[in-house]
């Protein structure tokens, strides 16, 4: 069991390092290691018909580090504390505007195309980090496992599409970029924001945190407006 777990961990790390080398070499947005390495793992699981639960015997060891990795974002936050205070209205206003646009656009499009209430509500917390999104989805009567897939899609949209979105919508300041990444794409977006500088990462991790807190409050309100 320990051997299997260690093997899975080593395989994951090896795949990740390999994909990182490829990303550094070509630097195309869709080659981000979070995507390519996951795709490689999924391909291996499907090819060898390995159940996800078996894979998670080792996978959970890496998964355990996700918690401290989120905690470590306190470091850029602290180093940028003065910029944070200066930009407080921008941070709060930006995340709330983003959350509202994200929630309403998702709900209206999905409901408009005839998806059932359970699907629509599962979509609502998509831009919020997984553990929090699951709680919100559950409390609203959505399907939390669907929600976690939707959160991934939202995360990858920002992490892969971010550079294009920044150009298309002419986003110019590092503050705007960071808040955009954090609000639309939580931690996956924050990992991408690392490439835009320390100010972007701290803005992104703040936006992600604010989204988790504010989203928990306005999520039910938005859901109630849609389905009173």
């Amino acid at each position, binding site marked *: 069991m320990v051997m299997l777990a260690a093997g899975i961990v080593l395989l994951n790390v090896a795949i990740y390092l390999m994909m990182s080398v490829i990303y550094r070499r070509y630097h195309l947005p869709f080659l981000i290691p979070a995507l390519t390495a996951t795709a490689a793992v999924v391909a291996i699981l499907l090819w060898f018909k390995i159940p*996800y639960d078996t894979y998670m015997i080792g996978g959970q060891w890496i998964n355990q580090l996700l918690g401290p990795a989120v905690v470590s974002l306190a470091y850029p936050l602290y180093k940028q504390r003065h910029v944070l205070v200066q930009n407080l209205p921008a941070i709060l206003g930006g995340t709330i505007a983003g959350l509202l646009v994200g929630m309403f656009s998702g709900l209206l499009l999905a409901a408009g195309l005839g998806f059932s209430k359970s699907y629509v509500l599962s979509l609502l917390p998509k831009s919020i980090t997984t553990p929090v999104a699951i709680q919100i989805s559950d409390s609203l009567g959505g399907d939390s496992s669907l929600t976690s897939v939707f959160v991934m899609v939202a995360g990858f949209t920002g992490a892969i599409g971010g550079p294009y979105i920044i150009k298309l919508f002419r986003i110019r300041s590092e503050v705007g970029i960071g808040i955009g990444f954090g609000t639309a794409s939580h931690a996956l977006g924050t990992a991408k924001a690392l490439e835009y500088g320390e100010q972007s990462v701290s803005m992104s991790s703040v936006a992600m945190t604010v989204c988790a807190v504010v989203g928990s409050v306005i999520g039910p309100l938005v859901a109630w407006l849609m389905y009173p």
Partner: protein
Amino acid sequence: MKKIIIIIAQVILLYLFFQAGNFLQRLLHLPVSGSIVGLLLLFVLLLCRIVPLKWIEAGSVTIMSYLPLFFIPATAGIVNHLDIFSGKGLLLILILIISSVLTMAAAAHASQWLATLNGRHPGRSRWLGRRSIEKGKEI
């Protein structure tokens, strides 16, 4: 060798903050996840100078540089939901992408606009200088 030990010790400290966050989250029934509570807790302790920056610096920098690695197992959970990527499910994926693009654009533009307003505030002219430098820096 000494550096590796320092990094490992600091990552363990970060892990303890994560667990403290989980504990507080359960205790107080907070609506956010334990990792976010841990992040805020560490941030506050850094601000109050109870935890010096050098206690977590090397560990944080290291763990952040491998951030995408830690998502892989959770993200690979998608294998159990592959049916969503076929038929009508594809429409949902499209909605998610459109909505996420709008979210990012709205958040970024609202914050940029508010930052400019803030910079123009008469009592805060000191920030105007900083703002215009920052605005001039095109990315």
